[in-house]
């Protein structure tokens, strides 16, 4: 997983005294008997590139639409920059939205589309023209000013939509699947551009996406949603390295899960009895756990080391047979079957695989990993 964002020392969500720009307090949205958003409380801080990530139907779009004002929460409060906006209509909110379908006005040209919001504010014409020119240069569409939306390519439309939603200097920009309609190549390129624009303008971005890679690349923090609730809110790196639930672990990237129960804990070292693994696994975990508690050990495939025979005094060694190999170019994925019948995945870069003796089908291997490389999930 790559990240376009440089690690920043300032992490506004860490500062307890900082007033968040968006504050959701126990927000619930019900459609009939269906809870689209179920009692969510969340703070988003100024300057963040915040992603709502989840599969379709998890409530992320409903949450975004509530921020825009298109849906009213069934219960709970919604504050933007300290102001309670729960019952404020969309046309009076200091936020703007970039729609998934872009929603460009088909009867207006590019310049008029971008100027639309400014005109509603009553900005004088000369000032408006300057602002439109500035925005068009920001998203690099100057030559398209007089075109109608139907004369533009998908990528150009996306840029017009972005420029239009930025025109009014919103306190928060809401983006609904901003790259969803672009092809893969353009999407990757646009991810970096979006991050650059966000950093340059310093506007808080709240992005809805179902694409974990997109969220990982662009976000300062990700809220992983599942069935109307938030599973975990963390920066991409933490979300990947330290998922807090089974769902979070399996949604982002691939993971091997071993169900078991705690047998003992010394300081931050936990021993977990796993019947599938046939041994006790050692895991680093600083939170205190009760012996006998049911937990799951999560192990990322790339953290697994392959050795050819058991080593003495090394924890977390599993013997198995390679059953399947998937060649992906840069890496290969190996499926190893343990004595219990459980399959464990590991990946190895192909550079490394070729340097050593290549692994092959039905080869017997020993998988090993350190206690630091895996985690304990309690939910």
């Amino acid at each position, binding site marked *: 997983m790559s990240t376009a964002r440089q690690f920043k020392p300032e992490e506004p969500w860490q500062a307890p005294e900082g007033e968040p720009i968006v504050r959701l307090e126990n927000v619930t949205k019900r459609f009939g008997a269906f809870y689209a958003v179920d009692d969510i409380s969340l703070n988003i801080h100024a300057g963040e590139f915040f992603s709502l990530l989840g599969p379709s139907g998890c409530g992320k779009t409903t949450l975004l639409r509530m921020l*825009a004002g*298109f849906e009213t929460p069934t219960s709970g409060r919604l504050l933007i920059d300290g102001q309670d906006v729960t019952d404020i209509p*969309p*046309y009076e909110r200091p936020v*703007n939205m970039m729609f998934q379908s872009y929603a460009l006005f088909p009867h207006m040209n590019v310049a008029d589309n971008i100027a*639309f*919001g400014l005109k509603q504010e009553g900005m004088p014409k000369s000032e408006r023209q300057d602002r439109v020119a500035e925005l068009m240069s920001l998203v690099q569409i100057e030559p398209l000013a007089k075109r*109608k939306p139907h004369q533009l390519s998908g990528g150009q439309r996306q840029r017009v939509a972005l420029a*239009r939603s930025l025109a009014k200097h919103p306190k928060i920009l809401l983006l609904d699947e901003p790259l969803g309609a672009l092809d893969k190549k353009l999407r990757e390129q646009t991810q970096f551009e979006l991050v650059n624009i966000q950093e340059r303008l310093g506007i808080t971005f709240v992005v809805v996406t179902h694409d974990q890679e997109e969220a990982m690349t662009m976000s300062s923090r990700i809220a992983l949603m599942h069935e109307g609730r938030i599973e975990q809110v963390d920066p991409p790196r933490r979300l990947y390295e330290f998922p807090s639930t089974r769902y979070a672990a399996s949604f982002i990237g691939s993971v091997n899960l071993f169900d078991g129960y705690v047998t003992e804990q010394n300081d931050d070292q936990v021993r977990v009895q796993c019947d599938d693994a046939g041994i006790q696994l050692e895991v680093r975990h600083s939170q205190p756990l009760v012996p006998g508690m049911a937990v799951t050990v999560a192990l990322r495939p790339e953290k697994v080391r392959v050795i050819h025979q058991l080593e003495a005094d090394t924890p977390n060694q599993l013997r198995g047979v390679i059953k399947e190999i998937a060649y992906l170019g840069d890496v290969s994925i190996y499926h190893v079957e343990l004595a219990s019948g459980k399959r464990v995945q590991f990946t190895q870069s192909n550079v490394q695989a070729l340097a050593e003796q290549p692994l092959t089908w039905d080869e017997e291997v020993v998988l090993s990993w350190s206690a630091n490389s895996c985690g304990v999930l309690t939910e």
Partner: protein
Amino acid sequence: MKPTSARPSTRHLIIAVPWFWLALFFLLPFLFVLKISLSEPTLAQPPYMDLIREIEDGFVTLVINFSNYQLLLEDSLYLSALWGSLKVAAISTLFCLLIGYPMAYAIARSPLHWRLPLLMLIILPFWTSFLIRIYAWIGILKANGLLNNLLMGLGLIDSPLAIMHTPLAVYIGVVYNYLPFVVLPLYATLIRLDLTLLEAAADLGCRPWKQFLLITLPLSMPGVIAGAMLVFIPVMGEFVIPDLLGGPDTLMLGKLMWTEFFSNKDWPLASSLAALLLVVLILPFVLLRHFERRSEEGNP
């Protein structure tokens, strides 16, 4: 090589069918009308003289008579009938749009299971004969009709309102009868309107009425134009409604044409009226197309 969906000859053949239809049933009859309009009336059956006549010994002569058109332009009766038709058509179209737009809008925005029944209600009057519906209006509007009796029964008026045989009765009849022709095309455009566009407008600071004015209304213009044409064109030639509901002072081209054809048996004059009407109707659309094309070319 460029792929083609059909061989040129096949394509021409397919296109030829509607062209042939139009030529046979629209162009040819119109040419007959044009021919009659250029002939001289006579007391015979049919009551006009041929343009090409044999004089003697195989000599033929072509006699073209422009006096009908001359009369149309000189006699103020015909021009005021044209003006009358234009006025009735324009005002009726306006009222049809003013009443029909909210109706179409309401149907398009109503819950899905309501739309079909509501549309059926719009179409329902067509299941009754046009003439019967107009006679029903006579029953409603006449001096001792339903409306006057109701108003007098409620004590709102002392003597019956004179609505029958006035322009008002014509307007009521025309607007009532042509309303579905506005509602249906407007409904078709409004139902296709992407509601996200209204959300986008709201998001950019538009209150609901401005969303309507800046987004819904301009984007429903194709429906407005189609509906307006479906009312304006037939009303220009409308004969039955002004004849049955209007009075002697209701001067319209359709009525006049009827009189010339059937009462005065002056087919050439009636035909020239028909030709004039066609020019009056076609000219605006030719101009409209011309300006549309120019504005399309104006865009890069």
